């Protein structure tokens, strides 16, 4: 067998078999009972050469409409944002991407320091005191927040706004079933959490009030009012947040959030058909020892030199096994690194500028669409997304728009019975005035 990933030669094989004291490789598998030994050859496609395979896969990729060739107005939790070229260069350094979890700190200082910096940046954006080294994605991070809250308050019910991303709510439902936690939905009214309903639902059984900021419909939730309601009933206040929006918005930490979660995908991570992205998880100092996942801390070596290690590991599965705060092991380290590079490139000025551009471009798009006769589903302050009403099923409109080179918005009828023919439109800083004007012109016929 000659293969570029397999350096074993026939000569090597002979020498090694001799050292082991067996005649053939198959003898090393003699402990597998005959009944379960696989006979014959796996019925999978034969190997292809590098050239032949890349040609095939390039053709397969070309069947997809990608946002490098199409103009996208699709968001709903995953966005087409500016990704500085430098991001991919940094994460392509194989000392980073071919390393394991930094369990040997002496030869993993690079990764550990990068994660320490990432934790700091997430704290800065969210206004929280502690952030972990990453979770799988925003959805699972949201679910883990509910579990932390339930464990901490010893209560078994969470209130979740209907204006939270439906994918995140669905993931939460699955996790909650495992933990016997009751999930109750707080209705939204006009695209924002209905605070009157929330008031009536808060009892001393509620572990957490969970909202999204900006919410799934793009609106800016009244974190100030929700915080006091949650804390009055001694429930935890959990906020899921698009971290890019926090370049412009007052951070949830300043409104007294206990746990802030979300996805760092807007920072340098490709949409990649839904993953891998990068969940973040930030808490108050009080909850530091309850956080799921890995934490990097600063310390010193035997000569007093500054260095970084994985710390507070007594929370984790490899130490605590069935008593761990979570079962998470692999996380999204490389994507956290990518997000760090993107956040660093944007820096203190860029993060504000990019967030404000999203606000302003979406505002412009909203104005232009209404001028063209398209009705907004609801009024209210929005970040880079908003909801419009169409006269036709969104799916039909989207198919027609694809013909024009446009990936239009999200079909809300898929998740909300009463929002048929409503489209969630995302306008990021990537969209030029010309893109927006084209979109408005094409969409006007469906008003």
């Amino acid at each position, binding site marked *: 067998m000659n293969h570029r990933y397999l350096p074993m030669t026939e000569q090597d094989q002979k020498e090694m078999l001799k050292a082991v004291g067996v005649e053939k490789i198959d003898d090393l598998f003699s402990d597998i009972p005959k009944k379960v030994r696989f006979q014959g050859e796996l019925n999978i496609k034969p190997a292809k050469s*590098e050239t032949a395979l890349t040609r095939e896969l390039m053709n397969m990729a070309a*069947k997809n409409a990608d946002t490098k060739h199409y103009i996208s107005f699709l968001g709903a939790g995953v966005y087409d944002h500016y990704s500085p070229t430098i991001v991919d260069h940094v994460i392509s350094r194989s000392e980073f991407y071919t390393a394991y979890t930094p369990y040997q700190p002496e030869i993993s200082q690079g*990764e550990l320091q990068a994660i320490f910096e990432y934790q700091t940046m997430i704290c800065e954006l969210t206004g929280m005191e502690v952030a972990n080294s990453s979770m799988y994605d925003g959805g699972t991070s949201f679910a883990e927040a509910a579990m932390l809250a339930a464990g901490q308050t010893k209560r078994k019910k969470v209130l979740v706004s209907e204006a939270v991303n439906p994918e995140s709510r669905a993931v939460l439902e699955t996790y909650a079933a495992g933990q016997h936690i009751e999930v109750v939905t707080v209705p939204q009214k006009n695209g924002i959490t209905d605070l009157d309903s929330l008031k009536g639902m808060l009892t001393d059984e509620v572990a957490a009030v969970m909202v999204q900021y900006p919410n799934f419909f793009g609106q800016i939730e009244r974190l100030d009012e929700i915080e006091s309601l949650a804390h009055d009933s001694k429930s935890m206040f959990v906020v899921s947040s698009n971290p890019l929006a926090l370049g412009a918005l007052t951070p949830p930490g300043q409104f007294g959030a206990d746990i802030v979660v979300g996805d760092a995908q807007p920072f340098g991570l490709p949409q990649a058909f839904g993953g891998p992205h990068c969940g973040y998880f930030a808490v108050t100092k009080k909850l530091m020892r309850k956080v799921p996942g890995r934490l990097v801390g600063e310390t010193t070596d035997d000569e007093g030199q500054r260095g970084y290690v994985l710390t507070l590991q007594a929370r984790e599965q490899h130490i605590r096994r069935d008593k*761990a705060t979570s079962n998470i092991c692999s996380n999204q380290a490389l994507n956290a690194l990518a997000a760090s590079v993107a956040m*660093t490139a944007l820096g203190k000025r860029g993060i504000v500028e990019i967030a404000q551009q999203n606000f302003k471009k979406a505002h412009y798009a909203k104005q232009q669409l209404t001028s063209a006769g398209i009705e907004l589903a609801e009024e209210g302050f929005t970040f880079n997304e908003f909801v419009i009403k169409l006269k036709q099923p969104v799916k039909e409109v989207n*198919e027609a728009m694809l013909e024009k080179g446009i990936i239009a918005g999200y079909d809300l009828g898929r998740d909300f019975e009463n929002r048929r023919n409503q489209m969630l439109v995302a306008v990021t800083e990537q969209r030029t005035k010309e893109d927006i004007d084209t979109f408005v012109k094409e969409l006007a016929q469906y008003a």
Partner: protein
Amino acid sequence: MHKKDQPLIFELSKEGRTGYSLTALDVPDVDIQTLAPEGFIRKTAPELPEVAELDIMRHYTALSKRNHGVDSGFYPLGSCTMKYNPKVNEAVARYAGFAHVHPLQETSSVQGAMELMYDLQQHLIEITGMDEVTLQPAAGAHGEWTGLMMIRAFHEANGDYKRTKVIVPDSAHGTNPASATVAGFDTITVKSDNQGLVDLEDLKRVVGEDTAALMLTNPNTLGLFEENILEMASIIHEAGGKLYYDGANLNAVLSKARPGDMGFDVVHLNLHKTFTGPHGGGGPGSGPVGVKKDLIPYLPKPILVKNGDRYDFDYNRPDSIGRVKPFYGNFGINVRAYTYIRTMGPDGLKAVSEFAVLNANYMMRRLAPHFDLPFDRHCKHEFVLSGKRQKKLGVRTLDVAKRLLDFGYHPPTIYFPLNVEECMMIEPTETESKETLDAFIDAMIQIAKEVEETPEVVQNAPHTTIIGRLDETKAARQPVLRYRKKETVEV
């Protein structure tokens, strides 16, 4: 090596520098304050660093030099399968049609991505011998929990609510019991016998009407094949439980023994181990789950279906456990794994396991005279040594591991599994050459000699790294988990 502190990126920041390029706002400007409720526009900018592009590149290049990856040198970390990460995988994952597609696009516009997912599933079904596969779980532990939730749904659908216990061997990965807890089960431990295999008598003792499942890694974490797998399967199945396969060690048995043929009902795979998704410094991974027929109704939704030439997502799955992750899994990692499988083909995958196993047995036999070998029999893709002999001379396994750093190696997994004293778990993988193995073996023999002659050299290791042994107690007692500007008062 010269010790030198690498400043934090924040310490390199200087007011007025920028590292980005945004198109200037080309729509009419508006006062940002008018776009949000009062008090909701941030008053102070987050303290992100202000650095120019070259500063950024130099900073991260410096950090990368302070990090050891598979491309830097041998990485025989047991149970982690640190094999070569092919570069073509990285290129394919970056094709615009894979990297820059949105998960909620109309399915007519993402048929290529769905085709890749579907074909990957078909390949994994054949490789594992299962009936259906979901790609949704993001990592191994996530797959474990997904599989256990499905087992729970299966029992509950049969009105069987008393199955509250999951059995795990004492040699199991820590994620097994943790995943069982998150899925709402209690964990019972089954002992290993003096052969390093699950003790059948103990298994018969702990199994019962409350058994939901047995979680097993085969070969187990000692690198030994559980020869009694069929007996174990019948013990569990006769008791009404399900058999769960932790795929962390699949690299040993590709085309040799399929979990589906061994009697397993649920399997998770770590595509970032056996199928070369890079480990990325801790992730992202991908943890697909395969199941036998009777568990198909409980798979996470949506599932991918093929109608004629067209691919679709089927959300109408009334018995599904629901979503375990937004969208369809870590697609980017799945693209890499698919590229790898198609690069290897059936012969290649078979050779992978054969060479991985030969490499491990070769190292084991050559190191056996110098360290204690707790289980003297053929191993599979990895093996464990015990540092008992060295411990008597005052040198612990941790010291041996740290000494290996001086030779430019990443040490083996240490102190795991828990049932072997002063354990070292070594997994060479098939992508390493005999020369690499020989050099590592020589280093281990030299260290064994040092333990006898100059133990302090080992006890005080490492001597050549950019930093010495770090004070982990201090890190945990006075946690500093983020940078703060010096003048800022500690909260």
